[in-house]
């Protein structure tokens, strides 16, 4: 049994999916998103992942920061390819050859290929987003093999310090500003970054002490949560594996060829079996079963 955070901050074990089911789904979605350059399949994976994420996102958490980060990353990928590729028949504009990197023709083809690169990035990130936005840190720890469990706990515990790190940074920056500090060159940030780093180290030592005081490192651990998968977990994991199977099998059979817009822009090929395989990834979006808190 795993636990997922619900609307009011309560944890909803009954309606949640096991972390191992999520891991399987995420790996499958990432594999499909990155296995080829066809933007149709990447787009379907991205849409499926977005729907799954929207369905399972705990109340109180927002997709807005992720959306901004993805927009920036995708925009960056498009811009780099657009400005640096200079390949393709349909020229949008031509920069002087003397300009480093961007000099030369700027083409529709390079814009299209940049867009498919950005789409692949978006699909891959959305595929792994549930691991951090839907699951709790202990869910991930539960899903790790025994050899990695302690490392996972140490990472999970240190992640708890991250929010405190942000608060310390704001507090120290504000306090130094009120003492007359103003941001200038890199060296001026010593007055903020040094005390923040020292405080982070002190907090880490305190956390290590608190963990040891609760017998961390005593020996073989056990887990509060059952590692067994339920029917719904198997359904999600199974459908994800089937999606990968269909996609990889289809590629072996000559379906789903990679798409390159160079030298001249062409429409990407669409093979219905692969589309169906990608759509299987949307299954978790229909399995969200809200339960009353407590």
């Amino acid at each position, binding site marked *: 049994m795993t636990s997922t955070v619900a609307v009011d901050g309560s944890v909803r074990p009954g309606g949640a999916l096991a972390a191992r089911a999520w891991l399987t789904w995420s790996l499958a979605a990432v594999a499909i998103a990155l296995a080829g350059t066809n933007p149709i399949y990447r787009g379907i994976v991205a849409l499926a992942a977005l729907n799954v994420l929207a369905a399972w996102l705990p109340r109180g958490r927002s997709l807005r920061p992720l959306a901004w980060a993805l927009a920036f990353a995708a925009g960056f990928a498009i811009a780099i390819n657009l400005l640096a590729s200079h390949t393709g028949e349909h020229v949008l504009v031509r920069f002087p050859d003397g300009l480093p990197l961007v000099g030369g023709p700027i083409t529709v083809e390079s814009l299209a290929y940049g867009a498919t690169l950005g789409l692949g990035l978006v699909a891959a990130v959305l595929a792994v987003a549930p691991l951090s936005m839907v699951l709790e840190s202990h869910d991930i720890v539960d899903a790790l093999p025994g050899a990695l469990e302690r490392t996972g706990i140490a990472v999970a515990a240190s992640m708890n310090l991250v929010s405190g790190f942000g608060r310390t940074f704001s507090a120290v920056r*504000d306090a130094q500003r009120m003492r007359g500090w103003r941001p200038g060159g890199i060296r001026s940030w010593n007055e903020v970054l040094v005390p923040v780093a020292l405080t982070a180290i002190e907090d880490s030592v305190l956390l290590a002490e608190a963990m040891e005081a609760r017998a961390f490192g005593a020996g073989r651990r056990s887990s509060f949560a059952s590692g067994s998968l339920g029917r719904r977990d198997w359904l999600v994991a199974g459908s994800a594996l089937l999606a990968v199977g269909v996609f990889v099998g289809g590629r072996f059979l000559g379906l789903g060829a990679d798409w390159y817009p160079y030298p001249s822009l062409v429409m990407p090929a669409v093979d219905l079996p692969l589309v169906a395989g990608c759509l299987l990834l949307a299954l978790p979006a229909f399995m969200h079963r809200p339960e009353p808190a407590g």
Partner: protein
Amino acid sequence: MTDRLATLRHVTYAYPGADGPAIVDVDLDVRPGLTLVAGDSGSGKSTLLRLFNGLVPQFHGGRIAGSAEVLGLDPMRVPIPRLAVGAGLVFQDVETQSVYGTVEREVAFGLENLGRPRAEMHDRVDEALAELGIESLRRRRLATLSGGERQKVQLAAVLALRPRLVALDEPTSQLDPAGAAAVLESCLRATGAGRAVVLAEHRLEAVAPVADRLLQLDDGRVREADPGRLASLRGGAGPKQRRVPSRSVLGPGPDPSWELNDVDAGFGRRPVLEAITLAGRRGEVVALTGPNGSGKTTLLRTLAGLLAPMAGSIRRPDGRTAYLPQDPGALLHLPTVRAEVSLTIARSGGNEPPDAMLAAFGLLGLADRYPRDLSSGERQRAALAATLAGSPQLVLLDEPTRGMDGAARAALVGAVRELTGRGAAAVVATHDEGLVAAVADRVVRIEGGRVVEMVAEVGRRPDEGATGQDFTGEGITAADVAAGSTA
């Protein structure tokens, strides 16, 4: 005696690299019941508590002499995880001791480490949550809990291991009165189950009524406090009572030094403060009270100019504004305490020697020490001196007495009076009723981002009449405020 749970004999301990021992020749027996440990910051309270579960000396290293026995085990040699079963420790900071993100799993963490069977873990988690009356929090995320609730969760996480001795290191220092009361109630439940609870605290008045015993630590030496002292703390005998008027509007008098006019403030699009109208005069200390999360810090940051208001206007006096954040020790970064104070003075354009401010906070003897090597109380005094130097005209203090011992509190009260005596205005956000009584000229209660309560509060003042003002204590109602009248 058979009910003795821990015994320390002639224990002396020094941290690695320390000039002297943190505790000296400690002789102590611990029995079931609540033992309150008093002492100034740096007196050795935290070190003493860490002896019971072996963190001292095993986690910290250093040199130790003497003998100790905790539940039949030697805490100097038996591995800490084995000691953790019998002797638990709850730390001061609720943020830095959490491992997982949810209540149930946080409580189960120690049991997982001990490899307990799953069924037993579920039973013990149920038992610990029930013992503290927090079953309803079981599935909550820690980040959504109040400070008091989080500290109770940490206590439950320790109780799940079924220790017979529980040590708590200033567990209420960061909590509002309601949170502190909840934690103390939990301690009582724990002692009711036959456990020994050893609790180190500065706010003795709050704990003394439920304590069975009072230990005093001075410079690492522990002694049984005079029984009369515990009785007097229980009885609440203290300085003369003083009534502090509670009102959000100024009475007749000179123009205000600072003003908030119909201010909304917050983060993103969500206002934390709504329609706040407040003002204060030169020489006046306004205390902001209210529960954790009510918006006091946001109000101070807005008044300081660190947060732009969403609506309304703000006026501050000319000259420097001093702002002391929560956990002020975090801002210290220079090689010496003197350098920290000098930096603030230089930045404010002043030329007074730093020694006056260092002396005000009793720091002259520590002026050439590295601030982060000081005890927590000394470090807090250093941060106060560094913040309040430079002749500020507006002083904003956010929970300044958090974890502060008596000497530091007295120094703070003196410094605030000194500054307001020279014409500065001060605004202090605090849960500390003693501080309110000691320095405040007026109390404003904030709740849910609004000024909500307009009744007189009663407090104590160690030095009655120090401001030369005599308050009638007559409160005013919210309707009075709305009508613009004053008490």
